[in-house]
């Protein structure tokens, strides 16, 4: 079997979804870990985003990480393109539908709505990337201020950017709500995606399916919750830069 055939059969396409999905899940772990540094301000009132800014600086400073970032974009795009192609191809497999639909009998709504949830996440990502990734990687000269911590070189103050976005008197509340909705979509998407990727890749022993399902539920609740707490904490002033 040629590689091209392997990845383009119906099962192979699902492997692509599962591989890229798991890769994106591993990215989420890094992302949530770094961003959770903002909560250092909760325990140490003088932190003011220092820990987070240093971590963000590190993520932009090494070539290895910048190359991985390209890999990340390739992964996201592959997941999106393949996901949409599968969704449309699968829908076209039943030209004439049923008069009475099955509804959610036997299969929860979110398991059948991965395309919709993925689209919501994509819309969120567009907002999110233009809020933070574009300023910190492309337009930083005009959009980011600089800070320097004791005996260090000056670095971008991404934390202040976060405060600026979520505490904005005009749009702040809108962004916070949209970010929470984004996290909700992510949670439901992960609830199906996490366990489904492993099972698509062949995990079928009872004990491992149990582990994967349990981990999946925990991951889908904890990670989006921590993400959602970031805009909320900034909006309510629990985490501040002064």
């Amino acid at each position, binding site marked *: *079997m040629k590689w091209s055939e392997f990845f383009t059969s119906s099962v192979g396409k699902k492997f692509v979804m599962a591989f890229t999905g798991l890769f994106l899940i591993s990215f989420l772990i890094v992302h949530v870990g770094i961003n959770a540094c903002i909560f250092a301000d909760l325990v140490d009132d003088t932190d003011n985003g220092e820990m987070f800014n240093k971590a963000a600086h590190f993520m932009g400073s090494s070539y290895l990480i910048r190359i991985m970032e390209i890999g990340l974009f390739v992964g996201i795009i592959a997941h999106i393109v393949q996901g949409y192609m599968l969704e449309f191809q699968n829908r076209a497999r039943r030209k004439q539908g049923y008069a009475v639909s099955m509804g959610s009998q036997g299969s929860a709504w979110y398991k059948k709505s991965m395309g919709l949830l993925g689209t919501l996440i994509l819309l969120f990502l567009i907002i999110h990337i233009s809020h933070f990734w574009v300023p910190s990687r492309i337009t930083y000269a005009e959009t980011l201020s600089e800070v320097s911590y004791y005996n260090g070189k000056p670095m971008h103050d991404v934390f202040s950017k976060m405060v600026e976005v979520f505490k904005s008197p005009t749009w702040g509340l809108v962004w916070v709500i949209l970010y929470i909705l984004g996290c909700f979509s992510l949670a439901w998407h992960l609830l199906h995606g996490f366990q489904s990727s492993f099972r*698509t890749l062949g995990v079928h022993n009872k004990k491992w399916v149990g582990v994967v399902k349990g981990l999946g539920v925990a991951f889908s609740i904890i990670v989006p919750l921590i993400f959602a707490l970031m805009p909320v904490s900034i909006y309510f002033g629990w985490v501040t830069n002064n």
Partner: protein
Amino acid sequence: MEHYTMNLTLKVWRQKNSSDKGKFETYQVSDISSEMSFLEMFDVLNERLIKEGKEPIAFDHDCREGICGMCSMYINGRPHGPWQANTTCQLHMRAYKDGDTIVVEPWRANAFPVIKDLVVDRRAFDNIVQAGGFISVNTGNAVDANAMPIEKDKADAAFAAAACIGCGACVAACKNSSAMLFLSAKVSHLALLPQGEPERKSRVLKMVQQMDKEGFGACTFTEACEAVCPKEISVTNISRLNKEYLVAGLTEDKG
């Protein structure tokens, strides 16, 4: 349970042939016994239609005891009707009460085109099995069944997979019209047994290829198939199929 009779409204899909557009036809049936099977109710209705000089409703059936997989009706939004682990022929009218309206549709999937009324063409399944769902043995004396030792757990799992009757309810229920539950049952059944070992890799590759050719969709693990399967084939088999495909696809040059 008490015996009772009921009057029902049936909305049945009528379609003269594969090129006809088809539409729902409404029928009133009366004095239906709670002891009747769903198909017997259709027999009663068909006899009446014949007496009235009308075309009877075409539907598939053969054994009427839940083992052949021929009967195929999508009843009120569910393949094989409301009962768990059940075929249409084994559905009994006690599942309904007087005055109910029941909508009956054929399986819907491009790969299962309607031939007439509620009858669909399921030859796509035969083609998948013919692509590799067998073992090749030279004819001769039958080998003693105990000559080949098989672990009990594996034998049980293979047997559970072999229970698939090829009815196609899994495809009918799936939002992607995917045949993966069916295929995974056929592949697992042989992959678990020593007899299936020699063709293990080429089998899964050929069968997946054939499934794709027949125009079924790709599985997204919604598990709707498992919920409606009359033989309770587990989606675990789909994971096993995927593993078989992964190993075969990565290691075989041909196929």
